[in-house]
């Protein structure tokens, strides 16, 4: 039972998003509702068909907002998955559980980010309960933002395994090349290795072009019970395997026995076993990319290569559109927009539907999406058409 678990019990039946911009005069709630309406329409549903809601765990929008604005007659399931950038993929697991057990039929997962004036990254983080220890012991001495939290993980990975800044650049340039083919992407100007190396240092070893964007916008997906999915408007994209995982010392990277391994390393074997697929079966992968190095580490934790070999793995065009494992075909958080990885789920679904135009991976049948968040939480979903 445990191995099969949620295999093919749920499908993503609708996806939607707003425009992605640097800033906005629309509220977080307004953007979230707009993306949600787009996803509901994409599925061929009406707002009143939604009976489950999982808003973004990092606050702002709550399930009650959807009842109020959509006039939902019978919201039977609501949950939060407060895992930062791992929240959307972890929410796929929660939604799949809800529809597989009949608790709900159509669960809406929605995430929006409003105006920068609503709070830059540092002020948002300081208020989060999972950041309490970091707040008391690390922020007080100038360790205030994810670039600074994660840099020591990357630096140690470089020291132990010889990972290089050229390999970081490979991730950034690959995402940019894919964004050039995506009209929705915020950053479409070509990036060379020299551009990457010339970008200003933020927190060594991270330069500006190793860091994701700050964006305004929203994205949403609908997860439906597998038996209901074929009756809807789009070809269903089934969730074959899904899992979340948490690292040791989840509230302080500083105290983690092995800071070069994420919670994803625990989730990945469960998801692959559940889906019954091997790494070679994955046609396309959307890997959470808040920082370039985080992609490299996750490729290892997913098992595409051994620990320490992620840097070499991303070289030679392997993660490009024509490569062995096309990664972040939309441009990712580095070049499309930072919608906390909800945009990664949307892109995977579109790839598996074959809707991606000039960035479409030929014959994409099976794909994978990860989330990474807070201080190393992870989640992964393996989906297929």
């Amino acid at each position: 039972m445990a191995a099969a678990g949620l295999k093919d019990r749920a499908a993503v039946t609708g996806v939607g998003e707003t425009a992605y911009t640097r800033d906005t005069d629309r509220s977080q709630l307004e953007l979230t509702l707009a993306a949600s309406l787009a996803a509901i329409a994409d599925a061929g549903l009406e707002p009143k068909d939604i009976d489950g809601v999982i808003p973004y765990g990092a606050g702002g929008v709550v399930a009650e907002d959807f009842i109020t604005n959509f006039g939902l007659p019978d919201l039977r399931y609501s949950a939060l998955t407060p895992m930062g950038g791992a929240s959307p993929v972890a929410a796929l697991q929660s939604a799949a559980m809800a529809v597989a057990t009949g608790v709900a039929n159509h669960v809406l997962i929605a995430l929006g980010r409003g105006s920068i004036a609503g709070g830059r990254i540092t002020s948002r983080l300081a208020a989060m309960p999972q950041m309490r220890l970091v707040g008391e012991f690390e922020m007080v001495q100038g360790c205030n933002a994810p670039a600074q939290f994660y840099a020591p993980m990357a630096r140690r990975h470089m020291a132990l395994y010889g990972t290089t800044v050229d390999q970081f650049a490979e991730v950034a340039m690959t995402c940019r090349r894919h964004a050039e083919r995506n009209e929705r992407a915020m950053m479409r100007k070509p990036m060379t290795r020299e551009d990457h190396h010339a970008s200003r240092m933020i927190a060594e070893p991270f330069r500006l072009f190793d860091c994701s964007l700050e964006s305004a916008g929203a994205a949403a997906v609908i997860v439906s019970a597998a038996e209901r999915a074929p009756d809807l408007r789009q070809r269903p994209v089934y969730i074959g395997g899904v899992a979340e995982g948490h690292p040791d010392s989840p509230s302080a990277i500083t105290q983690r026995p092995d800071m070069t391994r994420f919670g994803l390393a625990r989730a990945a074997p469960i998801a692959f076993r559940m889906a019954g697929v091997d790494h070679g079966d994955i046609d396309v992968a959307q890997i959470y990319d808040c920082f370039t190095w985080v992609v490299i580490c996750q490729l290892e934790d997913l098992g595409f290569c051994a620990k320490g070999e992620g840097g070499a793995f991303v070289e030679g065009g392997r993660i490009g559109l024509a490569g062995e494992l096309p990664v972040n075909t939309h441009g990712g958080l580095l070049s499309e927009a930072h919608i906390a990885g909800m945009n990664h789920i949307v892109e995977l679904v579109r790839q598996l539907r074959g809707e991606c135009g000039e960035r479409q991976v030929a014959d994409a049948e099976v794909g994978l999406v990860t989330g990474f968040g807070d201080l190393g939480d992870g989640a992964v979903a393996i989906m297929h058409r």
Partner: protein
Amino acid sequence: MTTTADDHARLPARPRPEPDALSAPYWDGLRAHKLMLQRCHACGRVRHYPRPLCDHCYAFEHDWVEARGEGRVHSWTVCHHAFHPAFKQALPYALVTVDLAEGVRLQAPLRGSDPARLRVELPVVVDFEDIDDTLTLPCVRVRA
């Protein structure tokens, strides 16, 4: 290398710890220029950061021990961008993650050496900086 209150009066207010009953002995220890670590009273394991329960034997009871103040570099970052305005004037500054001799880690800024010297396993010692009358923070120096 003590920074005076006058220096800080001109800077934006820095984020400050809000100690609770569990962490107060750590912060009080720093004020006395001692690095205090929480120790399980039942099984003797040292743990950091402070928390209510020993994850090995599940005892709530604990006491505090003074660390030797010695360790080795586990990792580090050199910050070139201030994500909080209070730290802008200090740029660039290195934050070092230290494997303390007691088996837990400390994160603290590097003082007295060029960050280019930092390497994994480099021996360091813990020192103290009085930020103002009520706050002392740890820092580390490369061992002579």
